[in-house]
């Protein structure tokens, strides 16, 4: 077609243009029409088109120990899943090996090869679990891995944010601190104080954007309100000892389970609570709160209540003699003393100290004609009532009334030595704590306050359950009994060099559900020791219960040793027991003071009880002038020039100098004696200034 084109050809060409224009226009029209009418439904039902209102989870508050150590706090974790189906074959073939290596290195749960074969096998899975509980930083790395890098739609990467409770202090008091569970069945403090801890979820409008949901500010927006912090009464030091010693003893005795509670006598605050049970693998785990939730027959520790009843009802006095012949018959049943042949003629006090079952006979003698009197008396001590603690799961004590179902002629003697009644360790301890607290029964509690930052939202103070447990004379008598147990009775091995312990041992046969008390070959015992220390001025009460020990069975040997170790450690570390060697009545001479911020100077002097006078109130920096009986604080001029820091501490000097852009070289320690750049000279930023301290 070389040469000049004909007109016809030109026309044809022009039509080509016209046709192209029109074709394209028709194409566009058809396509727009198709979009608007054919696929409009597709676009609209596509949920990623919509905005959605999401609840943004609030950060759960912390559970703290009594001095603010964190027992439980919240950190974000992620559940990583993969939509394998969405990943294209080519991408998968090319990059799966490198993804496998990344997963191996980051998660360390499977080898690269295992990952590759797993993902291949789950080719059709749209929600393949890669790993649960992935911390934030690892999730970030995963997000950058091959395939996953392509995002959720092409790379199939799914990260579900969750909030995990972490226990920076390990398992300490784990069960009491409690758990948060997805199903809402929270236990322990986490459960009981959930309303404070949980906070209020926020509301947020989110809109789908490339690669995720983008929060859009609007009028419905609500920021989540973080949960409050719950301060427990737990003392981490005591808790640590309690847990360590309990674990050691359980392992030594190869016991089934055990628990320890330490309570502050005066207030009823729980300072430590430990629960351990043997898992199927032979290790011990804190998986149930035995201390507050496991109601058992307490055994001999209950004798305290029986003796108290006898004394209060004036049926007996401590010096009344009893014939402890070692074998006591009630209808057709017998009770034996642990020492074969008994103890001969002994006083009631002695019977208590050696834990003779002659007490059962004594109680039976005095109450068999009016059994309900005994029950009423026990109930008057508050033993029949649950404590009403904050935490869930406290069973009510079982103390039958006369004539109830199952009541028999041997109920009174059996009850008097702690059988046919069921109490939790905490209920027993509360009773003993009442003795230690001079008859005032305190309600045990676990949480001292709830705070929102510095603001106290709710505070809990000690509560009295029973202001007067018994008469003073009975109280003194029982105290002497409890001391006697340790001095010369079953608890002799518990003696401590530096302070006196008072308490009671208990060795009870464990009733298995169906087997009764078991055959003689297969007897299981529960050894306990409950008491308080120091005996003459009780600060803490404590109960140790160990069930099914396999080496020894007696309370003093099994539980008493734990008690002693805890008591010793608490005594050694608690300042409460140690009076200051020389309490200063008043300051004879005024100590040297540093110059510095007036507020700080005042604070220090007020805390130390030093008389002081501040010249006037309107200055920030002061010079201290030690006079004979007091400190006079005068103003130090601090202006825009190089300040005079002589006489100040390093903290204040650094603050002032570096704020003015000077580079400080520090020499020595103590008070500033001299400065290399003269005060009052003009500040040149970056100049070095040397300060000498001594």
């Amino acid at each position, binding site marked *: *077609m070389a040469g000049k084109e004909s007109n016809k050809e030109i026309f044809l060409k022009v039509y080509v*243009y016209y046709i192209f224009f029109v074709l394209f226009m028709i194409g566009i029209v058809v396509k727009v029409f198709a979009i608007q009418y054919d696929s409009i439904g597709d*676009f609209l039902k596509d949920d990623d088109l919509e905005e959605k209102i999401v609840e943004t989870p609030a950060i759960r508050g912390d559970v703290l120990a009594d001095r603010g150590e964190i027992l439980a706090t919240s950190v974000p974790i992620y559940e990583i899943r993969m939509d394998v189906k969405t990943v294209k074959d080519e991408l998968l073939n090319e990059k799966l090996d490198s993804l496998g290596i990344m997963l191996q290195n980051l998660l360390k749960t499977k080898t690269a090869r295992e990952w590759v074969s797993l993902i291949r096998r789950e080719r059709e899975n749209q929600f393949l679990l890669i790993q649960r509980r992935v911390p934030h930083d690892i999730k970030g790395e995963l997000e950058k891995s091959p395939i996953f890098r392509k995002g959720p739609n092409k790379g199939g990467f799914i990260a579900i944010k969750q909030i995990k409770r972490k226990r920076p202090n390990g398992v300490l008091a784990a069960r009491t601190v409690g758990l948060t569970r997805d199903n809402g069945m929270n236990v322990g403090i986490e459960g009981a104080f959930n309303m404070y801890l949980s906070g209020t979820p926020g509301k947020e409008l989110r809109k789908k954007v490339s690669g995720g949901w983008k929060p859009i500010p609007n009028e419905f927006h609500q920021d989540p309100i973080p949960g409050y912090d719950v301060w427990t009464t737990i003392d981490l030091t005591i808790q640590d000892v309690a847990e360590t010693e309990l674990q050691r003893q359980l392992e030594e005795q190869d016991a089934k389970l055990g628990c320890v509670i330490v309570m502050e006598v005066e207030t009823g605050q729980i300072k430590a609570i430990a629960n351990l049970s043997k898992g199927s693998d032979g290790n011990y785990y804190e998986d149930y709160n035995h201390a507050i939730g496991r109601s058992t027959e307490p055994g001999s520790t209950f004798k305290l209540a029986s003796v108290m009843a006898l004394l209060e009802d004036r049926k007996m006095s401590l010096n009344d003699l009893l014939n402890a012949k070692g074998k006591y018959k009630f209808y057709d049943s017998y009770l034996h003393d642990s020492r074969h042949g008994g103890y001969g003629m002994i006083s009631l006090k002695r019977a208590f100290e050696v834990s003779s079952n002659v007490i059962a006979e004594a109680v039976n003698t005095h109450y068999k004609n009016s059994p309900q009197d005994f029950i009423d008396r026990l109930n008057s001590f508050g033993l029949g009532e649950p404590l009403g603690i904050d935490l869930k799961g406290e069973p009510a004590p079982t103390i039958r009334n006369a004539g109830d179902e199952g009541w028999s002629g041997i109920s009174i003697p059996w009850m008097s030595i702690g059988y046919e009644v069921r109490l939790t360790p905490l209920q027993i301890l509360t009773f003993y704590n009442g003795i230690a607290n001079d008859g005032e029964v305190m309600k045990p509690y676990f949480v001292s306050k709830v705070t929102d930052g510095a603001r106290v939202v709710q505070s809990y103070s000690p509560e009295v359950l029973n202001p007067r447990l018994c008469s003073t004379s009975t109280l003194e008598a029982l105290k002497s009994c409890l001391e006697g147990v340790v001095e010369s009775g079953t608890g002799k091995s518990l003696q401590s060099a530096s302070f006196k312990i008072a308490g009671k041992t208990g060795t009870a046969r464990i009733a298995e559900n169906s087997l009764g008390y078991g055959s003689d070959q297969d007897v299981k015992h529960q050894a306990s020791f409950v008491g308080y220390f120091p005996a003459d001025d009780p600060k803490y009460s404590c109960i140790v219960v160990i069930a099914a020990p396999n080496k020894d069975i007696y309370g003093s040997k099994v539980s008493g040793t734990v008690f002693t170790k805890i008591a010793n450690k608490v005594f050694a570390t608690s300042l409460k027991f140690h009076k200051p060697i020389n309490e200063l009545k008043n300051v004879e001479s005024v100590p040297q003071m540093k110059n510095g911020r007036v507020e700080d100077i005042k604070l220090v002097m007020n805390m130390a009880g030093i008389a002081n006078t501040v010249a006037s109130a309107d200055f920030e920096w002061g010079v201290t002038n030690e006079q004979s009986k007091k400190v006079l604080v005068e103003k130090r001029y601090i202006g825009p020039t190089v300040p005079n820091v002589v006489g100040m501490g390093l903290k204040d000097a650094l603050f002032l100098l570096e704020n003015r852009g000077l580079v400080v070289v520090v020499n020595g320690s103590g008070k500033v004696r001299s400065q290399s750049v003269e005060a009052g000279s003009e500040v040149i930023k970056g100049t070095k200034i040397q300060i000498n301290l001594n």
Partner: protein
Amino acid sequence: MRKNETILDNIDWSLILLYFILTLLGLFNIYSASFNEDFPSLFSFSQEYGKQIIWIGISMFLGFIVLLLDSDILWKYAYWFYGFCLLLLIAVLFTKEINGAKSWLGFGSMGIQPSEFAKLGTAIAVSAYISTINIKLQSQSSAFYANLIILIPMALILLQPDAGTFVVFTSFLWVFYREGISYDFILGFILRLIPFVDHTRIKVGSNFIPLLVVSAILVVSTLLLSQTTISVFGTQMPGFYGLIFSIGAMMLIGLILVRITVMLRERKKLYYILIVAGIAASALVFAVNGVFDYLKPHQKDRIELFLGLDEDPDGKDYNRNRAMAAVGSGGFFGKGYHEATLASPSQGHVPMQSTDFIFCTLAEEWGFVGGIIVLSLFVVLLFKIIQIAERQRSTFTRTFAYSIACIIFYHVAINIGMTIGLAPVIGIPLPFFSYGGSSLMSFTMMLFVLAKLDSERKNVFR
């Protein structure tokens, strides 16, 4: 010649009117697309609509100047303009990257994009070259130089990189087509390598360009469809089968049209051409699909990325989905001015909705009807320009008219095409509608230069 009289008398006022309508519609569309409640006035010069007013003012001023100038300087200094544009294109390569490309020259928000002006400069240079007396595009050297003129700016634009403008420059091939360029020498060179083909007998002539473009469209369509499946009466089959069906359907329609419109003695030849074309097109589709399947994954990745098939880091797929959702939600009559939700500036999530995806706002607010009206205005404009081109005695003016017709057509087709999923997502503005000073100035000057040249159609014979 009484110049003062002829300018006003001979100006094609319908062209100018079309320009004003499109520009004003564009402005009001931007006013909605980037509306900011804090600045409700159209004349808020801190906002895109306020700035666009300034750009319109500057553009019209430039257009007015163009009308006053002596048109001789255009072709006398054509290569100087061209050279100046090339200098700007080189200069821009030394600037800082903005959004991954070095395409802005100037200061902050009031910069210009040299690539927009390069289209105008190249159009003038191409027109000047082709209108030179001795140039015959059928000759090897003329074809070579003509192509060189467009290849240099294309190369520089690719360095920015600006894929969109690069593609727009291929519109000049259509100008060459009108002027009868022949690539037979290249074709012959290639065919010589194939045994049993007598290359001397194959003469495609100026039909090479349409064939090339049709082939290119077929290749791209095949690739786009190769990863999809369609369902025909319940049977699943690869997506490109649809393309084969379409080719078949078009052949049928073509045959029927030929039978109805063409005289008997010419039918045979056209039947023959249609059948060969249909078979060749189908073969091409199968071949491309076969080759693509044979490619290694990373090569496929690259092609898919280029075509916008794969989701790349910019999320182009997503952008287009949102854009299509906005278009789709407009319905027949639209939601009304300032009533867009999906393409609304405050709560919508259509990206770049005042520039590349401006059509969304239009389609959502004015619906199918609004979209068709604007589209029709563009088609009328293009027809008008071609009509103007064909009434010229001057090759220069005709070539220039074709140049700007093809440029505008490419812009409109690709811009709207990418918004509604007919074309790959390459960011080029919709003429007179997209926010932006450079493109508006460039398009304005194109039209006003054409108007000026056209007004002198009776005066000169170049």
